[in-house]
């Protein structure tokens, strides 16, 4: 494993957040690309693009990806992956919509709690049953989507049948066919409102990422997460509670997806079970674009944020490109997105940053990581 650039450059670890959470070598690169893309958009499209309105709405939309990506960053650092986040988010949005009758805080709390428990279930499958993360979370991915589709029936049919004493109106409010509407008389939607002109989701993101960065850099849990990803067997032998750590990261991932679900429900006012298709890949791409390797053992929370913003900007710009007489079909947009992902990953890959330091002393079992193929650039 070629030591990551950020580890090579910083002199004193623990000096500050800059090293452990914030600007590592990789995230600096992403940051530059981010600035570049933003500048380009601003030059081409002017104030409609860089204006506060566009930025605000763009950020609020991407806050959902930001939460999911933050959670999944922790999972990826342990060398795992969480495909279930999109399904968990959509199920959470259904729940949040139904819970909205109790007001914002109870809805938020209950939803995130349930989502966390689902994440915990992932962690249990991975940590306790030893099922590979991809498959374990694929299972939840299917099941949670199914439950999201069933959710309206649960509230409209099953629960009323189970509790015949509760007045039927209690269960049925706002449940229609496959969707669940939020209760607009309560303050639920204030979560996507604004404080001092700043949308609350943006504030939440800043806070969440700050906490995430501190946890990763300065808490035992964070360091242990990195250790587990770096060498699980060693971590176990060194006495780390590997299973618990794994369960925790999946729980975090679930909880963050739950948060994304709450925002989703609040923003649309009606929760649809067919929402959020493919968002897991969007969130995971953001993590990767940020520079975190899927092989685990390293990663940066802030880099993930940059990744989310970068992908968000690209999407946003694609909408703008459609404006000028010439229009890019959605098909071409996919092609462009594929090429863009390719370029960003290329810029960060060892192919362009590799310094030819063969990595023979690392104990990491080779296989999937791209760091340990000393030969490919050999001749």
């Amino acid at each position, binding site marked *: 494993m070629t030591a990551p650039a950020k580890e090579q450059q910083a002199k004193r670890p623990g000096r500050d957040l800059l090293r452990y959470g914030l600007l590592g070598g990789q995230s600096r690169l992403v940051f530059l690309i981010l600035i570049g893309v933003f500048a380009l958009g601003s030059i081409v499209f002017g104030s409609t693009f860089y204006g506060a309105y566009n930025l605000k709405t763009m950020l609020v939309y991407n806050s959902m990806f930001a939460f999911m990506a933050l959670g999944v960053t922790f999972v990826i650092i342990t060398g795992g992956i969480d495909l279930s986040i999109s399904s968990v988010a959509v199920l959470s949005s259904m729940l949040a919509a139904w819970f909205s009758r109790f007001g914002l805080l109870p809805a938020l709390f209950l939803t995130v709690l349930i989502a966390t428990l689902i994440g915990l279930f992932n962690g249990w499958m991975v940590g306790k049953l030893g099922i590979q993360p991809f498959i374990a979370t694929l299972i939840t991915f299917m099941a949670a989507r199914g439950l999201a589709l*069933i959710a309206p029936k649960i509230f409209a049919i099953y629960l009323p049948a189970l509790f015949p004493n509760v007045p039927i109106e209690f269960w049925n409010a706002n449940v229609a066919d496959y969707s669940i509407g939020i209760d607009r008389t309560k303050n639920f939607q204030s979560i996507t409102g604004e404080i001092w002109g700043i949308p609350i989701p943006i504030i939440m993101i800043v806070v969440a990422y700050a906490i995430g960065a501190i946890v990763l850099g300065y808490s035992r849990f964070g360091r242990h997460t990195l250790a587990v990803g770096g060498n699980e067997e060693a971590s176990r032998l060194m006495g780390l509670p590997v299973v618990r750590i794994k369960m925790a990261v999946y729980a975090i991932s679930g909880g963050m997806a739950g948060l994304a679900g709450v925002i989703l429900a609040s923003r649309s006012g009606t929760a649809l079970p067919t929402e959020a298709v493919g968002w897991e890949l969007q969130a995971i791409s953001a993590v990767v674009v940020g520079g975190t390797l899927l092989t685990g053992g390293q990663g940066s929370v802030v880099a993930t944020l940059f990744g989310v913003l970068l992908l968000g900007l690209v999407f946003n710009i694609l909408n703008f490109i459609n404006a000028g007489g010439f229009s890019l079909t959605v098909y071409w947009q996919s092609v462009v997105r*594929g090429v863009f992902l390719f370029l960003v990953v290329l810029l960060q890959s060892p192919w362009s940053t590799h310094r030819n330091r063969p990595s023979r002393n690392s104990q990491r079992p080779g296989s999937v990581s791209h760091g340990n193929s000393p030969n490919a650039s050999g001749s």
Partner: protein
Amino acid sequence: MLVVFNIIRIHNLISNTPTFIERGTVNVEYARALQQALSVNLTQVATIVIVGVGMTLVVATGGIDLSVGAVMAIAGQIAPLIFLGPIADRFGMGVANFLALTVPIAVAAGFGLMNGLMVTKLRFQPIIATLVVFIGGRGIAQVLTNGYLQPFKNPSFQYIALGRPLGIPTQVYIMFAVVLLALFLVRRTAFGRYVLAIGGNERAARLAGVPVGRVKTLVYVISGALAGIAGLIVVAINAASDANLNGMNMELDAIAATAVGGTPLTGGHANIVGTLLGALLIQLVRYSLISIGVPYEFALVVNAFIILLAVYFQRQRAA
């Protein structure tokens, strides 16, 4: 594994052919029902198995291929472009059909090559490399006809899906041929050993002289080509190419089949027969649930649970 499979199959037949049982059927009818149920299941599972075999090889090297669905769409889109286009007029239908069966597979293999080169030369992580094609590839397929479907009627081309030599659908032959070839590849050839060695310990394999880059690339090429074949089958059977939906979610089916079949995603093993059985299990569960009228959303949950069980027992056995 096999036991579960058999139990389900038998249960399946009993529960799915109520009419036969009601009528107090004789063996002949039961046999016909069995043959038909088998035929439907094998037809439907064929594409998953074909793609799953490629996936199994990729997974055995420690990689993963998310691009198979998109590659299916591309291959499926190209075939009608060829036999509906000027080539058919200029050189005749025979040539056009030949090209329609070969060019798309070659192009699909080309995308596999691209995946392989991204993984080996540019050293992208496999998920990411194939995610690029997953995202961009479907776009390419759609761009080819601007998203439009291409309906057609071309019996000789469609023979790969609608043909019934000896009463068995052609795609079932293709499926078994692919399985047998892959089995042979894994068990008997040096290439097969290399695949497993790379998945087991890539650095060690390299130092033992294994041409790691070439083997890995080739595995993605195979996966791409097999996805191409599957894409053609889908198009042929539907008498229309649909770039928007052809191969949708195929990567998940193929990966699930691989994992349920007992090939760990960590690499170093390739259980080809397992993949066949895994796909059959998934297919049979799906078939049973649909035919007994379980709504889609419940079926999803049940499916998830069965995969969990299957994977759990696989893991137990491996441990």
